[in-house]
């Protein structure tokens, strides 16, 4: 019983880390551009399709294809921000929402047209391997994916701390007027930020493609998941997204284990409601 539970918690933790990376993209975008990307899950699904295509047609392991997919999504994000979203940055939230809903509809049905309605999954050769760590069984794919997610998150934090572009982006987030005054090209930085957020999604999608199957209708589900994680951790906070992912991963495991598994989603939404009411800035966000 306890070993089973411990196994489950480890699984939840590892899976949560991968979800974190996806949510991190949402958080970065909101933190800087102040636009909630309601097409986030759909973009993740696109990345998963890309991983599947590379795996199927070029026999490229998703872990190796990851940089390429991240780059692809970076370009997509950059172009989306430049060509579409930028005009809506100062518009009210419901306009941004409808815009991104339209984008999501296009993505979902575009992938239906291209890839068909079937679920696509990737079976890497080591897909069924597990490590025995003491009494625990640790799934190899999850461990690899979680490690990769953690590394990428770390790199991203370094990017925002150490590089000029990263610092400039943070300046935009902290003080937009100030950033304009000192001559930063805000439009370009926003596009870069959206691109980086999308690249996170690309990386997360590549990793997720090894864990779950992708269908055109996978998108909305993933969008909701990203929201829950980011709100729980703190919208706009990078550490918060990581924490939120782990928390949601583990709490769903616990809810599934002790309650009815089909109700675990309800549990996540209950956490979301409580956080929104009691601590809307999230666990790691700063109160405005």
């Amino acid at each position, binding site marked *: 019983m306890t070993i089973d539970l411990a196994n489950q918690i480890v699984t939840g933790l590892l899976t949560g880390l991968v979800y974190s990376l996806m949510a991190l993209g949402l958080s970065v975008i909101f933190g800087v551009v102040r636009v909630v990307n309601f097409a986030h899950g759909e973009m993740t699904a696109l990345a998963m399709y890309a991983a599947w295509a590379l795996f199927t047609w070029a026999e490229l392991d998703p872990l190796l294809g990851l940089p390429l997919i991240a780059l692809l999504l970076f370009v997509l994000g950059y172009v989306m921000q430049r060509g579409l979203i930028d005009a809506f940055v100062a518009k009210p*939230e419901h306009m941004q929402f*409808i815009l991104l809903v339209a984008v999501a509809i296009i993505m979902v049905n575009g992938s239906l047209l291209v890839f068909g309605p079937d679920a696509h999954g990737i079976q890497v050769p080591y897909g069924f391997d597990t490590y025995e760590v003491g009494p625990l069984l640790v799934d190899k794919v999850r461990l690899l994916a979680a490690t990769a997610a953690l590394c990428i998150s770390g790199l991203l934090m370094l990017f925002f701390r150490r590089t000029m572009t990263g610092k400039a982006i943070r300046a935009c987030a902290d003080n937009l007027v100030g950033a304009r005054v000192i001559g930063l090209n805000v439009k370009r930085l926003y596009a870069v930020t959206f691109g980086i957020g999308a690249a996170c999604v690309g990386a997360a999608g590549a990793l997720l493609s090894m864990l779950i199957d992708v269908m055109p209708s996978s998108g*909305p589900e993933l969008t*909701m998941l990203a929201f829950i994680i980011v709100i729980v951790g703190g919208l706009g906070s990078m550490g918060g997204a990581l924490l939120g992912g782990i928390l949601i991963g583990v709490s769903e495991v616990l809810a599934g284990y002790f309650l009815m598994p*089909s*109700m675990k989603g*309800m549990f996540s939404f209950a956490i979301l409601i409580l956080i*929104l009411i009691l601590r809307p800035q999230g666990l790691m966000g700063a109160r405005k």
Partner: protein
Amino acid sequence: MSRQAILLGLLLAAFALAPLVAGPYLLSVLVVVMYFAYVGQAWNIMMGFAGQLSLGHTLYVGLGAYTAAALFVHLGVPAVFGLFASVAVAALAGGVVGSLGFRFGVKGVYFALLTIAFAEFTRILFEHIPGLGGPGGLFLPVGDRSGIDLVHLRGHPLMFYYLILAMTAGIFLLCRRLVRSRLGYTWLAVREDQEAAAALGINVFRAKLAAVMLSAGLTALGGVFFAFYYNNLFPNQAFGMNRSIEIILAPIVGGLGTLFGPILGALILTPLGEGITMATEAMGFKAAGIKQLCYGLALLAIVKFLPDGVWPWARARLGLEPGDGDGEDDR
């Protein structure tokens, strides 16, 4: 008579006479149009007038639908009485969402996410209530489809058409009164600037709560219609996120906070969907998904080029700018 009133009269007459020329197919499309005009208008009270963005509005559709349907199925309560319970339950739910959100200062996008969370929570909850069919669905006995029984809401599709037409006309007139009432002005003030509204003696919390509860209660009536028109309810269809999106498209495309917006939006969107289906079929595109792809592109174009909605744009072109009448400014 103002030009707006004439336009309104013409529109109502056209819809009332539509069954004379429209076949059952067109009528079924018009029912969908009217349904979305109705719930869009109800949503508009909360967002367009009081400025509170609800992205989980199907919560109230679902609660309204399930309440009246369950009362009918389990206790035999006629729809005409059940709808009061529906309105009460939905208004209460709106009160809970609103008071929690407003009391704790949940604002903007956070409030919108809160409404989604409540809707999704309720969806999963309803999947676990066996008495309401769970995910297996709640079925209403269809009964006689030829007569007209407004008490039980059983009857001919034409009856449902006139019912939803009356509901849409009713909510239009109600909203028209509301925007010119003390409460309506209070909402506008809250929508525009809460701090300034409070400084003018407006109880912001109460005003917002009134908007949510009224909007929720009216939306629930749409849910009752939905339940008795389709005669089956499933949590994922009654409470699903995509239904919430469908509800808010019409008023936003038509023009947020305007009276004609939701109607115009619904009149554009539903036929647009039908039109795209026919056009793609006529052009020989058989692939599934192409219709929604075009729909998405059309939606994108509308929000991009007419960000204030179609009605404010059309109004300017029709010479119906507000301020023509003596203090009877139409929104």
